[in-house]
């Protein structure tokens, strides 16, 4: 990995800006046969809950144009097993790990943060205030600034001061900038934008909803323009808050698009299901794309799209046609 792609999320320095998105990298063991996990900027865990959760019955996934609709019900082994079995393995592999936390109440978020406090190998904590998959959707934190802020505050208070706390937000809120401001006011050191967006598919064979959860979260390239919009708007309002851009990243140019909108790092999610080698490929393509634009440091590209019209950007050299791959 060249210095060109080094990045930072506040105090957390990363040798690569390409991460895995929460819930898409398994425990890490599933990806390890395909590439060296050390090449990851960071590995984001599946959201950890206080108790083991079996999640929803199948079918949990439906294929939609350039996307997936999933209603998982936040399955996971619970924090006890996670701390005994999954996190130590990641530490052993020397993988920078961002632990995603999901709670069903502010108290549960506080408890999770408390359990995680001081545990070695936690590079950052991501607060999943957004996942629209949980059974009790009526209390989704991410749709209310006050509720989102309360969850962030609970985790921030329970986490060691040196460990960054990131808020992962959903795009289908009335105004994502308001939610982002509330989270940063509550102590979030960074933001992960965006989680899935609620959607629905109906099976025209059975004449019933395609998912047992009825509605589900839309992810994949279909979501990318929404992610770019959210990152752009939030970066405009909070230019000094580091953002992990995520939502439909499948190529290096997709990653660059989010970086130009204001992200300091990107997370690959659904693309991993389609292509287990997506992370090293996106990193390679991003390095090539930066080099072709003569951008020496990734930091110089962050938020570049906010420059006013009339600014002449470095042009792509015409003799090097870029390989583009857009699933």
């Amino acid at each position, binding site marked *: 990995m060249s210095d060109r792609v080094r990045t930072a999320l506040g105090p957390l320095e990363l040798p690569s800006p390409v991460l895995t998105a929460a819930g*898409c*990298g*398994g425990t890490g063991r*599933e*990806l390890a*046969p*395909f590439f060296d996990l050390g090449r990851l900027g960071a590995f984001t865990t*599946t959201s950890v809950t206080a*108790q*083991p*959760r*079996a*999640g*929803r*019955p*199948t*079918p*949990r*996934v439906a*294929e939609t*144009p*350039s*996307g*997936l609709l*999933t209603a*998982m*019900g936040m*399955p*996971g*082994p*619970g924090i006890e097993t996670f701390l005994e079995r999954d996190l130590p393995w990641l530490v052993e592999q020397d993988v920078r790990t961002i632990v995603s936390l999901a709670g*069903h*109440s502010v108290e*549960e978020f506080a408890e999770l943060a408390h359990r995680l406090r001081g545990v070695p190998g936690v590079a950052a904590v991501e607060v999943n205030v957004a996942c629209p998959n949980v*059974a*009790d959707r*009526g*209390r989704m934190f991410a749709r209310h600034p006050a509720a989102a802020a309360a969850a962030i505050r609970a985790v921030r208070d329970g986490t060691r001061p040196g460990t960054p706390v990131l808020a992962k937000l959903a795009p289908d809120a009335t105004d994502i900038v308001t939610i982002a401001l509330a989270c940063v006011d509550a102590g979030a050191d960074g933001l992960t934008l965006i989680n899935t967006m609620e959607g629905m598919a109906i099976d025209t064979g059975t004449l019933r909803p395609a998912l047992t959860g009825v509605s589900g979260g839309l992810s*994949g*390239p279909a979501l990318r323009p929404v992610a770019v919009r959210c990152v752009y708007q939030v970066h405009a309002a909070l230019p000094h808050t580091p953002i992990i851009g995520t939502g439909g990243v499948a190529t290096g140019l997709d990653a660059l698009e989010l970086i130009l909108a204001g992200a300091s790092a990107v997370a690959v999610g*659904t*693309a*991993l*299901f*389609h*292509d*287990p*080698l997506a992370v090293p490929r996106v990193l390679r393509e991003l390095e090539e794309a930066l080099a072709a634009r003569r951008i020496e440091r990734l930091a110089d590209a962050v938020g570049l799209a906010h420059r006013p019209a009339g600014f002449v950007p470095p042009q792509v050299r015409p003799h090097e046609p870029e390989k583009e*791959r*857009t*699933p």
Partner: protein
Amino acid sequence: MSDTPVQTSATVLTVRQVQDYHAMTLVAPAIAERFRPGQFVAAAVGGAHTARLVRRCFGVHEVKSDYGGTVEVVFADTEPGTGWLAGLRSRDQLDLVGPLGRPFRLPRDPVGCVLTGGGPGAASLFALADTLLRRGCKVHFVLAGPSARQVFGSRMAQRVGDTAAIVTEDGSVGEEGTLDDVLPRVLQETGADVVYGCGPTDLLRTITQIAGELGLPSQVSVEEFLQRTGACGTGLCMTCMLPVHGEDGVTRMVRACADGPVLRGDRVRWSDLGTIPFDALGAPRVLSVTEGGSR
């Protein structure tokens, strides 16, 4: 490490129609050399610019050493993704990940084995038969289906198996009847020690039940369930979950792809497939104050 899966661009050698199914042979040496019977491959459909993100999982019919190593899969054209696959021609490229999943466990001694299957899934039994025969096992096939066009490999089974029984509901090939009529008889006549199965979920359930009544172990591949519910094949997406009870008596939701596709038949809670049994680890707690809709 030779037992780890690889991602490779495989070259299509042939695609042919076999009864109601398509048999596709691909040049994929890295997968062929790692493959063990019962494992599967996951294909990306739609080409480089595809809008279909779900990988399609198929059991492997056979691997050969031609062209450095070939892999053959058999599938039904049931949806646009498999339709695209069926339309591939010789020399086309296909993005393939494999071999994936846990293989069939093989007996240590040369014992009698009954291999039971139906639908395109029956194809996976032939790679298994090959390995069992080389170990000196007796191989007895029982193939079942609604009619002749849905029984894959009946002639091949007669050729390679020590015995082969075919049963169809309409009697268009073999005996007229269902698996219930034939399997108990074959198990008794052959004195088999183990039953292997691959095919539709209902068939696997029947196999497990009949084997259980005779006190025989059964190993079944839930490939069809995986095809219906999975999205990645690599164990990442957590969508192909089915309830399996463990040694400790606790029911857990396990992945058909990474924890299977071969499972001990008697461990699968067949009647609870597509549900989260109330006693499964992590099942929703009914009317719980913390998780229910009380607020």
